[in-house]
């Protein structure tokens, strides 16, 4: 399955998000802007939940390209230590178990598994217990 856009995450067996590092200030943003000021850098696979909400209604299409049949999904901000806070889906977690500060790890998830050609979007899931 291919990514929803090129350059969002690496194609390693354990993919990592690709951020952009400001060549002058060192500030890291996501996604990597398409200009010379930013150098693409892979980001940490581990982070903690900074904030979240549950999207309870189907976003308008266009632009939303998810499944017609809507099920609510969590939209989270995940702090990647020393890097930045990124917006992404949360998967593999009951809504009631979501807690700010919980350890998370990066993964990908299909935007619409039943699409003719499904695409992967960035997501985080609860970190494996050590």
């Amino acid at each position, binding site marked *: 399955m291919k990514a*929803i856009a090129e350059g969002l995450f690496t194609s390693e067996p354990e993919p990592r998000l690709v951020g952009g590092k400001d060549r002058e200030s060192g500030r890291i943003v996501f*996604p990597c802007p398409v200009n010379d000021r930013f150098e693409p850098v892979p980001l940490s696979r581990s982070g903690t939940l900074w*904030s979240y909400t549950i999207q309870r209604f189907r*976003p*308008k299409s266009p632009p939303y390209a*998810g499944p017609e049949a809507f099920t609510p999904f969590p939209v989270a*901000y995940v702090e990647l230590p020393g*890097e*930045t806070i990124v917006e992404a889906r949360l998967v593999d977690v009951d809504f009631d178990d979501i807690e700010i500060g919980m350890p998370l790890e990066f993964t990908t998830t299909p935007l619409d598994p039943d699409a003719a050609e499904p695409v992967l979007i960035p997501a985080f899931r609860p970190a494996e217990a050590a």
Partner: protein
Amino acid sequence: MGDVFVLGVGIHPFGRTEGMSGVDQGVFAVRQALGDAGLEWKDVQFAYGASDAAGNPDTMVDQLGLTGVQFINVRNGCAAGGSALFSAQMAIKSGECDIGLAVGFDKHPRGAFDAKPSEYNLPEWYGDAGYMVTTQFFANKIMRYMHLNGISRETLGRVAEKAFRNGEKAPHAWRRQPVPLEDILEAPMVSDPYSKYMFCSPAEGGVALILGSEKKARELGVPLVRLKAATMRTRPPGSFEVFAPSVDIERGGSATNIASRDAFNIAGIGPEDIDVAQLQDTEAGAELMHMAENGFCADGEQERWLAEGLTEIGGKLPVNTDGGCLACGEPIGASGLRQVYENVVQLRGQGGARQVPGDPKTAYSHVYGAPGVSAVTILER
């Protein structure tokens, strides 16, 4: 530099008005404001008009009269009305003119605002994935704020409950039916922690303010409501704004912080001197966060303030006395000017059932919105 006074105010009721365009609602408000000030359209030397989605404000001259008046259109996101007012007061303060108009109106389709990634310099995938949804941002922002500052969901509910209770007493409000706290908390969720009663809706409406010099105000014999400060500011580094694929770990202040601080500096007074405030309440949590961002309380104190009713009409600092955006809806071009309208009504003692007791002398208004803009005014009688 001369002082600026509000000579007259007018409003077209907010909500949904079939068969009346946004421009028509703006014209309605202008005529009412002119009548209130005892002026005619030909007396108006210049106008700044704000609208986001309802056409060019300067087309109002077709209905108001082709006097050749200087008319500048303002489109500045959620701060459009505040920007129109800011610009108008500058012209009077400078001495260039002595009677001017700030007008705002809008008419939005039902449902959440439509936004395209390209308009915000964002990649297409961001919209495909379902993130061009403003409510997600508001919900994420308050979820973090509640976690850090010990704010309960019940307090969010109390803000909405107060809004509909105050809206019932404001003839220009849209939602004029009180809703019990329990119903607000148990209503269908839109974006956790917010239920449907905790978000305002896009709406329609028009507001007009006639501004003038002290000389004109005294000539006309209108109540002397002085515009002590009007500021409009954009965001500093490290703020958290709508449609943000990433946020800096090092947190910064907000456009509101700067607009508020500068307005208090210009007015030469502090938050403790304000008798009534209208604060941006796009959602219930916004009112709470803006109480702190504007300096009225510390982060976390809102829990007690709401429980004790300190922001009620008879409280220590009445907030959103006409029900704010939650009860009036948010026609972008008109919303910030509605707050100033409401403050003028309160300072003149014309608030009827929603009048703040104790003869308020100072009033504060605050707008905040995409993409990280804020406008503040301080009025004094």
